[in-house]
């Protein structure tokens, strides 16, 4: 047998090492549809418990929306369960083409190429459009999927301090001898919830002749006054060249991703992107659900408006209670605790209070930046927010951190 005891001991040791360092990730079993209120079995084998969910990317509350579920059901009947093919062999139905058209329309782009996920969109894009003669200039806090995509590309790599426009300008100057330049950033950064200054980025792109690529996974559907994303928020809808995004967060939360941009870029992805060419097509039910999501969002801004209102209420409530927050304008609201153990302890105590949140610490965030990342949804009702605020306040009091600033929390709990 090839899987020897030596191999087993090695992997067991690695896993034990993760447990010893406190970075081993345990999954919790949810026994209900994704929603603001969910039924969770945790720890494994325990009686399921009803908790309020403040850690999902279900920003628009569409993950279990009846119209979306109905559209997916209908597609199961009319288009089947799976396609058993990649797109270019026999995995493209009329609804895949329709979703690409609708997504381009929604984002204000010429063309779209669907991928099985945004992870795969980011893994495939750069290698297709940039060569060793070109430069990719990225923010240092871009999502891990972009980092992986950049590593797969042979273009020259530059990166700049998070959201620092002076540092970006230095890098653009360094890259002036390259044939093509692409500035690469997240629209909304997932850990801090801050928004990239796309207006300034586009100005620099014009000045130094660079393309602008944005991963708007944590923005599409709700950032900007009609929810088109960070390019709408910054009034640069015609100045951002490429947007990658996901159907796995605000847009229904199932799976799937896309690259949208000039029609040549979308077509280059279709012809050459390896994750597009060699992984399965999006399942029909998910495509139909995604089409319904875009229809809902194109008809009305009610859900993104409610999300905005909920976010404002949540931020104000936590601030008033005395928590140290990362300031911002998005439904990602990080409660800063700095100490990794404190973040884990508070997350555990909140769970006992019926509030499901997660503590994040190094290496997921920078050393000494441990936090609980709360995420607000249009699916949250006022009573959900009030119950969670009361629980946060109770646990904050228990640990004596209310009203404390960064230095005071660190003085009390260390880093």
């Amino acid at each position, binding site marked *: 047998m090839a899987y020897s005891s030596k191999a087993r001991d090695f992997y067991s040791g690695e896993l034990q090492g993760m447990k010893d360092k406190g970075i081993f990730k345990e999954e919790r079993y949810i026994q209900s549809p994704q929603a603001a209120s969910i039924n969770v079995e945790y720890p494994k084998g325990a009686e399921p418990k009803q908790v309020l969910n403040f850690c999902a990317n279900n920003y628009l509350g569409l993950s279990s929306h009846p119209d979306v579920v109905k559209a997916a059901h209908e597609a199961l009947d009319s288009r089947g369960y799976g396609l058993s093919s990649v797109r270019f062999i026999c995995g493209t139905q009329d609804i895949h083409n329709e979703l690409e058209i609708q997504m381009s329309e929604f984002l204000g782009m010429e063309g779209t190429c669907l991928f099985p996920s945004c992870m795969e969109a980011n893994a495939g894009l750069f290698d297709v459009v940039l060569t060793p003669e070109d430069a990719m200039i990225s923010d*240092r806090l871009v999502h891990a999927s972009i*980092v992986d995509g950049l590593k797969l590309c042979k273009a020259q*790599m530059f*990166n700049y*301090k998070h959201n620092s426009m002076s540092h970006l300008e230095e890098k653009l100057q360094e890259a002036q001898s390259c044939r093509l330049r692409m500035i690469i950033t997240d629209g909304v950064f997932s850990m801090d919830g801050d928004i990239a200054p796309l207006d300034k980025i586009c100005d620099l792109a014009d000045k130094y002749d660079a393309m602008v690529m944005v991963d708007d996974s944590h923005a599409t559907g709700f950032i900007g006054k009609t929810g088109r994303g960070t390019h709408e928020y910054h009034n640069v809808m015609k100045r951002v060249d490429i947007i990658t995004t996901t159907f796995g967060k605000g847009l229904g939360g199932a799976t799937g991703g896309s690259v949208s941009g000039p029609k040549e870029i979308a077509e280059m992805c279709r012809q050459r992107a390896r994750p597009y060419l060699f992984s399965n097509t999006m399942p029909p039910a998910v495509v139909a659900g995604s089409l319904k999501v875009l229809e809902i969002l194109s008809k009305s801004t009610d859900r993104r408006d409610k999300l905005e209102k909920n976010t404002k209420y949540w931020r104000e409530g936590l601030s008033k209670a005395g928590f140290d927050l990362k300031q911002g304008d998005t439904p990602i609201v990080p409660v800063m605790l700095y100490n990794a153990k404190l973040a884990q302890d508070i997350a555990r105590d909140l769970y006992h209070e019926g509030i499901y949140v997660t503590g994040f610490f190094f290496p997921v965030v*920078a*050393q*000494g930046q441990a936090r609980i990342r709360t995420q607000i949804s249009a699916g949250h009702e006022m009573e959900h927010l009030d119950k969670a605020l009361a629980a946060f306040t109770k646990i904050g009091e228990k640990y004596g951190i209310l009203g404390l600033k960064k230095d005071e929390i660190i003085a009390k709990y260390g880093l």
Partner: protein
Amino acid sequence: MSDEIKKMIIEYVKKEYLDEDSDQEIKEDTKLISSGIVDSFSMVSLKTYLEKKFSIKLPDEDATPEAFDSVNNIIELIRKFGAKV
């Protein structure tokens, strides 16, 4: 000579990786990667800087997080690939 080079690399690390208002001290044995000052993704700037400054080529398999984890380690690495320091 070596001290001057160390000072130069420290200055680059401070400018390239620390916030302008940071008062963090960097010494020749300060851990850069394992402490989180420089992450493995942004390490590429430091690698490019060293290659240009010393007219050397650092192969990817040798430009590891361990080799970049302190200014002392970096000096050892660039010496190995022909830098006159």
